[in-house]
Every structure is written in C-alpha cells, then in structure tokens.
C-alpha cells in the first residue's frame, strides 16, 4: 500500500469490533463456570446434599422468597456453617490471587510476575513462622494471631521492597523487581533460621506454607472481604491504565500518564489483596500465574478483559482445587497448594498447546 492510494474521503470505513472492552459473553461464561464450581463444591463432601434441596435452601434466604428446602437441621448447618463459608473463602482467595497476579504482570510488564514477586510470600512466611514459634496462645482471642502476622508480614515485605527500589533513584520496574528479590531472600533467610531454631514448629509452618483453606464459620471470610472489596475496586478502576503501561513507562509518560504513580496504586491494591488471601490460606502457589495466562490465551491480552475475567476465573479455579484437595484422599486433606500445582500445571500446558494465539 502506498500513500498515493489513500482514499480521498473517510466514508465506507466499516466500524470494526472496536476496542478491547469487556464483553458480556465471556463474562457470562466465566460467571456460569464459577456458579457451577461453587454448586458442586457445596454439594460434595462426607455428607452428600441433594442439589434441589440446597438450591431451595439458598433461594429461601433471598428476601421475599419463602421456600421449604427439605434439608434437615443438621444438613442446613453443614451447608451454612461448613460448606458455604469454605467455598466462599476459596472463591475469594482464588479471585484475589488471580487478580493480583494479573495486576503485577501488568505493572511490571513481566509475564512471570506473580502476587508473591515483591516479597509478599517471604514476608507472610516470616510473619506466620514468628507467630507459630513465639506467639502466645490465642485460643481465647477473637481473631487468631497467625493471619494477622501473615498479613502484616506480607505488607511489610512489599513495603520494604518498594522503599528499597525507590531509594536507588531510578524508579523503574526492573529496580523494583530486583529489590523484591533481595527482600524476599533476606526474609526467607530469617524465616528459615527461626524455623530451624524452633524445630517443633516445623510441621505446622510447613503445612501453612503449602496452603490450606480451613474455616471456622464465616470468621475468615469476614476477615478477607473488606480488603478484597477495596483492592478489587481499585484494580478494576485502573485496568485501562494497565493497557497504557503496556507500552512502557517512557511512552506512557509521553501520553500524559505518570507510570510510577499508577504502579504504586496498583501494587498497593494487589498487595492488600495478596496479604488478605495469604493471611487466611497460607501460600497457595501458581494461581496468580496460570489463571491470568489462561484468560489471556482465550480472551486476549487487554487488561480491560483480563482483570475481571481473572477475578472470576481465579475464584472458580480455587473452589475446584479445594474440592479436589478435600475429597481425593478423604477424610485426609491434601494441601491445596499441591493441588493447584499438580492439576494446574498440566492444564496450563494443555492450554498453551491448544489455544490459538489470542487475536
């Protein structure tokens, strides 16, 4: 095509599919997947619950709906106090980890970034180990010390990495990642030292690091929800700007955007989400990488689609992973981190092989 062939007018240009906005169909599909996963997870367990009865029981809680579910009192208690809190918690944790992973990949322009990149995992690990090794007995406290310590450790780890990355003067994404590596290595060293000194805690610490979803009613859910809400709103609002950051800090600046400011806000929100998830579930690996990448392969690379679809997809994925973790070796439970990696990795490889390149 030469410039002289340029069409004179600007008529007959067919309006194409337009920009990468989130469309209804993929979102509906993801939500349907999530609903299906949640329903199966609620029904399956040592006590099988009847699908119709459960649906009727759930519908009965809606305002203005009066149904008789036919669940016994014991079955209703299993549903409301055991199954549902765990499914909701799994969904929240999966959603937060997948969203945070997508956000980190966006602000660092690095497909290998995951929510634990900047020292969140190492910080949480140290916090949890300290709480397990030296913490007072918190059986009588309204909230356990462990999630608090893990949350604080995760936030402190990322904050330290951020402060270190800024102090160098050059506030580039690479500097930040490298300081994250340094902080993580240091915190892990301290954590390992504490763990070795208090070897009787080894088993508990190890179990925590592999990830677990255990609930006592709705307490953990209530702990996560405020942070989940805040960080989800913040990251969803910034998802278009993550697309602008895809051209790099420099070009984003020439388009009128302060890249370091966007990065600070998004990293802050993603860190809150990660810390909240880690506090109640330990270190569940892999979700933050495979869910966003799977979404990318089927729905394209724009963060405007990637963030909301990762949110929903991450929830569905972790609910299913938890279902596997608590059923395959029942009555024993597998660490959920083992399940996400064991099933997630081959699934991801399959997606990589079969999915055609996103348009």
């Amino acid at each position, binding site marked *: *095509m*030469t*410039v002289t*062939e*340029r*069409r004179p007018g*600007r008529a007959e*240009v*067919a*309006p*194409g*599919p*337009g*920009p*990468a*906005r989130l469309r209804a169909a993929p979102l509906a599909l993801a939500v349907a997947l999530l609903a299906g996963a949640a329903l199966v997870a609620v029904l399956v367990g040592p006590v099988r619950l009847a699908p119709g009865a459960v649906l009727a029981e759930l519908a009965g809680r809606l305002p203005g709906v009066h149904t008789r579910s036919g669940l016994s009192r014991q079955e209703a208690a299993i549903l409301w106090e055991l199954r549902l809190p765990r499914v909701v918690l799994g969904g929240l944790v999966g959603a937060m980890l997948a969203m945070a992973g997508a956000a980190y990949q966006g602000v660092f322009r690095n497909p290998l970034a995951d929510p634990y990149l900047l020292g969140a995992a190492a910080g949480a690990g140290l916090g949890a180990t300290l709480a397990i090794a030296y913490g007072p007995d918190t059986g009588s406290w309204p909230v356990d010390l462990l999630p608090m310590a893990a949350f604080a450790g995760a936030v402190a780890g990322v904050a330290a990495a951020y402060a270190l990355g800024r102090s160098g003067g050059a506030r580039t994404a690479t500097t930040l990642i490298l300081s994250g590596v340094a902080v993580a290595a240091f915190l892990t060293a301290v954590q390992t030292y504490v763990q070795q000194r208090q070897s009787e805690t080894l088993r508990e610490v190890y179990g925590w690091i592999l990830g677990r979803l255990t609930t006592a009613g709705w307490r953990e859910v209530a702990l996560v929800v405020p942070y989940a809400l805040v960080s989800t709103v913040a990251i969803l*609002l*910034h998802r*278009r*700007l993550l*697309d*602008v950051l*895809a*051209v*790099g800090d*420099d*070009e*984003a*600046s*020439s*388009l*009128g*955007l*302060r890249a370091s400011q966007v990065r600070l806000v998004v990293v802050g929100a993603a860190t809150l989400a990660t810390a909240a998830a880690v506090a109640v579930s330990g270190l569940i690996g892999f979700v933050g990488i495979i869910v966003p990448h799977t979404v*990318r392969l089927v729905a*394209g*690379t*724009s963060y405007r689609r990637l963030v909301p679809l990762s949110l929903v997809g991450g929830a569905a994925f972790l609910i299913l992973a938890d279902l596997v973790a608590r059923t395959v070796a029942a009555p024993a439970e597998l660490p959920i981190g083992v399940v996400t990696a064991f099933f997630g990795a081959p699934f991801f490889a399959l997606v990589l092989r079969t999915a055609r*390149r*996103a*348009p």
Partner: protein
Amino acid sequence: MTAVELAGVSVDLDGRPVLRDIDLTVPGGARLGLIGPNGSGKTTLLRAVAGLVPARGQIRVGDAPPGSLSRRALARRIALVPQSPAVPAGMTVTDYVLLGRTPYIPYLGTETRRDLAIVAEVLDHLDLGGLADRALDSLSGGERQRAVLARALAQQAPVLLLDEPTTGLDVGHQQQVLELVDILRRDLELTVVSAMHDLTLAGQFADQLVLLDGGRVAAAGPARAVLTEAVIARHYHASVRVLEDPGGGIVVVPVRSTLERQVTHEQPA
C-alpha cells in the same frame, strides 16, 4: 506563530552533559530536520521538548508559559514517536491507536464515542482500516510504523516529534513514511520535527536542518547551507560527496576516501 521555542536549554543525563545551551525556534507549520552523528543529542532534544527528561533553561510550547503545562496538557500539544516504540504482544491496532487518546480520557474513566470516532478517522486517514483488528506484533515494519504514527495523530497534538521514523525500513518504505508525514503535516497543519540519520532524506523532507554535535547546535539553516561536504566531514568524520539532483535538491553520497583525511577532529568552539 512559534510552535516550540528553546532558550538556553541544557540537559544532563547521569551527571554527563548531553545538551548544552540550545537555542532553537520552531515556527508553526515548519518541518525541521534534526541531524547529527550518533550521540550528538538528537533524541535527548526531542525528549526534553516532550517533557520526558528534566531540562534547564526554558522550553516554551505554543503560547503557554514555560513549565506551566501538566503532563497531560503537554501530551495534547506534543506527540512523540520514539525510535523503537514498544510493541505490546497481542494488542490490536485499534487498541494501540486508542492509547493516543490517553491525555483526553479522564484518569479512571473510559473512552467516549468521540475518542472512538477520532481513532476510526485516524485509522482511515492512514489506510489502516483493514488492519484495525490485527495484532500489532503481526504487522510488517512499514505497517507498524503507520500504526505508531496513527497513535501519535490520535493525540491531536499540533506538534509532532519523530525520532528517526525510518529506522529499520527499506528505502521504499522510508520514502512512503516520510511522504505520509508530509501529507499529514499539510492536511492537519502540523509542525514536524524529525531526527534523521539519512542526510539525503533529511534534505528532501525538511525545510530547515539543525545539525547537533556534542550537544550543541553546530549548524542550522536550509539543507543546501548545512549539508556541505566540509560540514559533514567535520561533524560526522565521513567522506561524502554532495551532488546536485537534476530533479532539484541535493544528494549526499558516502564515498570511500583514498586520500588521507584532511579534516581535523577538533570540535567547533
């Protein structure tokens, strides 16, 4: 009207002076060619005007007082096409061009119908309509360069800065891109400042040339005045012949010198 005016502009990068005391006036509607050997400061000058590197001295853009424009406001007045733009994997041409609307879209907002209409118009103008849904990283070099130009045009800035816009293109696509820029400049009444490597093309596609060397303006004026064998030898340390093109203009041809080079290597005072 003056589009861009620099008075006593100096830039240091990592403590090293890169631009020293540059005075430069770019009239509105001008097509200015920025030439000079590698490392002479061409890119830094463009980046300083675009507000991407801190500079001392005064840089006035349009009628706004120097330093008064926010980053967003500056991005509405100056569009920069970098030498090697990032190519985000999988991003469609439409989405890429839409990035040019960033300075108009509210920080946490989303694009309006008007933004989309402008994107469609720019795509059409650059004959990119058929490629609108293609991924940027699947385009050829020439197509990609047009997409990058389209993003800059979507900024609707009166001043267009191009950093070596023909890098990596064959001679035919080099001409096409520069012709296209020239047509756009006339159609949209743009002011165009381009850093150029190819001196012949620089002479053909710029009314005025500014030769940078060692961070200073070494020569400025019409192509015939700046592109002389002596000047090029002195600043590029190159042996060239400057030939008359029978069709008008001049042609700069490198030659292999058999004589010992006679020019001194000293920098101009």
